[in-house]
């Protein structure tokens, strides 16, 4: 539980995870800036256009399902070998 987050401790590079789906989200995929950068599956179509500014991770599903997948990855406590 992180309910009592003290935002003054928050830093982009350790606390912010980004999510996008397309080439226009390139700024969100600046890996060095954020703790982790994630694309939903559809982002794979845009990897070429993204060049080097591609996400570090990708969800197995697209669009809202991808968001749910990422949220669950952040929410799950203890690894349970999700498939």
């Amino acid at each position: 539980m992180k309910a009592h987050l003290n935002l003054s401790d928050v830093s982009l590079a350790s606390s912010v995870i980004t999510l996008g789906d397309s080439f226009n989200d390139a700024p969100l995929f600046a890996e060095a800036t954020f703790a982790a950068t994630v694309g939903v599956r559809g982002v794979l179509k845009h990897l070429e256009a993204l060049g080097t500014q591609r996400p570090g991770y990708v969800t197995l599903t697209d669009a809202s399902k991808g968001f749910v997948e990422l949220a669950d990855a952040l929410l799950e406590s203890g690894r349970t070998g999700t498939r």
Partner: protein
Amino acid sequence: MSESQQPESVFISFAEEDRPIADRVAERLRHDGVRVWQYTQNAESGTWHLNELRALRDSKIAIFVITEASATSTACLDEAQRVADPSQVETIPIPLVVGAWDHEASDLWLLLSKWNGVIASPDLTEDALRRLAELVHGRLGSRPVSSLSTGQALSAVKDDICAFLADAEELTSSEILEKASDLQHKHRGNMVAFAQFTYLDRELQAADLLPPAHRADYIRQYLQAFFDRTVASGHADVARRLAGYVEADDTIVISEYSRVIRQAIMLVNQSDPRLFSTLRFIVVGRIGMLLMADEPLRMVEELSALGATPEIMPFSVWIDYLVGHSDSMAIGQVNKLFFGVEAFSRRGDIVYPQIVKELDVLRTRVALGSPIAKALVVAAGEAYKVCRDDHEVSKMVADPHYTVMPSAAVDVIVTDIGEFRHDAEGKVDLSSCISHVATAVDSMRKALWPAESPLPVWNLPDDVRESAAILATDIDGSVTDGAKLSLEALARFVELESRGIKVILITGRSAAWAAALGHYLPGAFAAVAENGAVLIDRDSTDDGAILLDGWTQDERAQRMDAVEECLAEALQLYPDAKPGNDNFTDLRTGPSRCPRLLSPEQWPHSRSATTYATPTAQSITTSVGVALTRRRVWLRR
């Protein structure tokens, strides 16, 4: 030996009255390419039965057509007795009961009921024939290498599939899975769940994220790594832990051939020869019940090679012993019973080749006062053999070779990562085994994954998950499907908020859009709109929208002129376009002069991430930072 007598043949035992049934079975099997022995001699000539017995001896499988007619045939009974004889190791019977009659009262059934078979209606449906054929194929198919242990069979499949992948170019996941399943059948029938145990099914989902040309190669490397790391070390670690359960003067019953048990005993032999010399081994002969006709022999040979004098106990004697039958008491006191396990459920149930009779006795051994009531029953197996869900257990048990022994039947489960005993409520939880393998697989993937490809989100490091405080997410296409928010996505907003993870919405849409969304979405404490130009801080005491340009009024006015110019130019290029309109007209911002606009002809081709995104990259990063800074100030106020 003639062609028909070569050992891959199937013998059919039947009464003359049932010849039409035998013919249909033979026809079906021959159609599948199986050699079937069926006598053609005149049944009255007096020589046929000897020929038949010779053929029976040389066959791998004997199908017994059990009907009211054959139940009273002395020839059929004679054949059944020969095959059911515990010392007979060559031929495996398959009972085929046809018709609705009291077959359980017949001697044929009594002799053959412990083998898997088929009970069919009088008309012997196609479905019954199919089930029979499957049993035959399963046994014939696995016969040549049937004595491979699970670990050996897995390795054999792995070697073959890796060779296949090395030559392959582009393959789909389903092609790879299909090949794995074929090879699994070739090496050991249904009796090993290759894709399940190697987490290959899961890994193929990950490999689907790679460009098609990279998949086969990646999966080949993955399987090599899985075997080098998880299988090999798992085996050694289970054996090491199991060896710890061997004590001086133990009488150890080994109920099935298992590499892990062999390895454990070898360890004891190496580390403490004196202790080893005090041990007594009894190997249960399961001949005929499984295909592993040579297994007890193999175990006995290997134990003998170590200098032990193992005894073989026929299965029937073992059962007699378990239930306390006085004839079997010469065996004496047994104090350890080791099982090499095929698979576990998450709750510690044991998936095991058909041992139904043993199962009930083991479970109730204390209540029944069985001679092994005080013996320590140890089930050993690697963590990767823990089924990830009940569906996997059901899939294995759907195979008639398998059954499930409740975890309560054993005292200790020994795995490579730990030893598990029941808690006060009699429960065992093996989910740590699953996470152990999944974590190992994640780290293999990280090491092997092509550098230019994004990793599956499964690989998000634990420390990143732990420290995540903000999720900055695009909206359209990332959180929505076809511009709609799903119920599931909405639920995650609520859940993220309740777990202290804040969401910042990032969008190219106008400030008004973002403000509204940010207002209504739970957990969204800020929104960055207009491609990073505007920040909306929902809980701020200000009006809620902040321009991130840092300009004075005059500077902004100049830029607004540039925007108007730009707009006019754009409308010339795109006469059908309409200027956007929102509630935050006073917050418009823009470049100091109109950028070069692209004509409709140029637009689709030149729209690349760099030209489109660069101007906004800095502002988005800045705005997320500002959102945090402002919040900090606000919190302190």
